[in-house]
């Protein structure tokens, strides 16, 4: 067993951003472990050539490309079969997987089949005293657990957006096409449809995010937040209660389940501050909270607090911002 292997997903036909984040993780390990990094690229279609090139551009020299019509969005069973075949053939010590929709199912199942050590949702990877050490958020983000990986092989899944996409470091790389056998009839699950929701585009990349919570009282409150976001040039998201109640699409959810964001400015409106929501926003540089309840836990995580009714504060803020922009 040798080497660090990144499972690079291109299930939508192009390289996922979280695959690039894995490269950053691999870089933390490769030097100290003295191991090489390779990538197993799984997907289908002409986009795979560019995906391989992108991997090379970021310093991953050896790419095993696996192109199969069943390797598409959400098809974890096919990805698992292909991934297991390729990983067994290449025999790495460490497999890194992005904990996205497919990855979070793939990692434990692959670890089971390989009888590998398993650590999921890692936010930091490193090597200390020769051992792989990872950190992960626990207790709704209130604490950080440090785990030492004692056995090999090891499968580590990395929380999306926890690591930065590394700087390009182009190398002249190779692409080896690997064919895998997948028996479609034997797969117990099949994606019938992929429904893309009207996403709050760029929620994870926005520099300014406004989040709405249960305190908005209903879906109408989000119209006000949308106006504020427009004035500030930001995106709108939500904590869990509005998405559970169906006031906004589920993929607007920010939190431990949902998106992790690290904007320069996060404004939480009518959000009580449940720990699982806070876990999704602690990386924000400045957090402003607007809430009627001075006791709301959100204020323990906020930098600036406004105790008040959002129905008064947000329109006033919109007006003020317009005024300042006009001036």
């Amino acid at each position: 067993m040798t080497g660090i292997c990144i499972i690079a997903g291109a299930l939508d036909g192009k390289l996922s951003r979280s695959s690039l984040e894995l490269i950053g993780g691999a870089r933390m390990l490769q030097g100290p472990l003295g191991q090489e990094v390779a990538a197993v690229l799984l997907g289908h279609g002409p986009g795979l050539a560019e995906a391989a090139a992108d991997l090379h551009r970021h310093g991953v020299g050896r790419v095993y490309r696996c192109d199969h019509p069943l390797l598409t969005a959400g098809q974890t069973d096919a990805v698992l079969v292909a991934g297991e075949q390729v990983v067994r053939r290449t025999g790495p010590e460490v497999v890194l997987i992005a904990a996205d929709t497919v990855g979070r199912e793939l990692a434990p199942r692959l670890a089971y089949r390989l009888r590998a050590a398993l650590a999921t949702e890692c936010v930091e990877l490193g090597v200390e005293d020769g051992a792989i050490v990872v950190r992960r958020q626990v207790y709704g983000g209130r604490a950080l657990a440090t785990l030492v990986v004692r056995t090999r092989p090891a499968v580590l899944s990395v929380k999306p957006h926890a690591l930065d996409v590394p700087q390009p470091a182009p190398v002249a790389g190779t692409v080896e096409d690997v064919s895998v056998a997948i028996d479609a009839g034997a797969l117990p699950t099949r994606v019938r449809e992929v429904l893309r929701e009207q996403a709050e585009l760029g929620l994870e990349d926005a520099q300014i995010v406004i989040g709405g919570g249960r305190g908005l009282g209903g879906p109408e409150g989000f119209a006000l937040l949308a106006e504020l976001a427009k004035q500030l040039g930001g995106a709108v998201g939500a904590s869990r209660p509005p998405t559970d109640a169906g006031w906004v699409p589920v993929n607007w959810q920010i939190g431990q389940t949902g998106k992790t964001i690290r904007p320069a400015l996060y404004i939480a409106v009518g959000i009580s501050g449940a720990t699982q929501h806070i876990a999704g926003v602690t990386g924000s540089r400045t957090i402003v909270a607007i809430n009627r309840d001075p006791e709301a836990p959100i204020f323990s995580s906020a930098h600036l607090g406004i105790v008040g009714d959002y129905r008064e504060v947000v329109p006033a803020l919109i007006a003020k911002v317009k005024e300042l922009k006009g001036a």
Partner: protein
Amino acid sequence: MEIIVCLKQVVDPELPARDFAIDPATRRQVREGRPLVISTYDENALEVALQLKDRVGGKVTALTLGPQGVAGDAIRLALAMGADEAVAVDDPHGVGLLGVEKARVLTAAIRRIGRFDLVLCGCESADWVERVVGPLLAEALAAACVTFVSRIEQTNGGLLVRRMADEGFHQLEVRLPAVLSVTSDETNRPRLPKVKDIMTARRKPVQVWPMADLSGTPADGDAPGVEVRDVALPERTARCEFLPGDAAAQVAALTQRLRDLKLL
């Protein structure tokens, strides 16, 4: 449909910060004296199971793993909500098992329960948040696996499920038997038990199995390949600065601060 729902009891995740503490000896949260609840998404899993039973008939078995005195409340609530029977695997040492270890014990318990069509659990536990138990159970039980499922329908030959995905949803056809991990959704908010059912829950069968009696317990087999070295609280950030006055004054102060921070 024979459905087994795995329920974990955890310290209330909404505990005030001042009551949250890590025990350095166990490297886990201090549970003594803290209120316990069923892990958030496990409740959604139970609700999904009950709704499916309401629609297609069958039986729902609640399965817990933990110190018996503690798991009792989770079982009582599950039976009051409508589960038909319960199995409590008694682990007297309590918490501290990693997901891989729990999955092994639960697998042995499920095998002993016998036949099942569907196993449901929460997509992640509110405390340790590994997100592994569902997929590991599926592998061990040779069952189909989908995680982060919000809705389930029965179809000819299996299930149609909705999985929450980064870009929206996936609709998947799933063959039985299956292990699904469940996330919350407007359609699966856990029901409050009727008081009548709280009383009749007493009469429903509950089996208690000592963990040591089950094969596949942590004592058997390999130790997990990872070890928890420590659990630490991150540094406290600065106290929140409350902006004073009425809405106009607060907004003026806020915009000034945002300009100072070059965010406006």
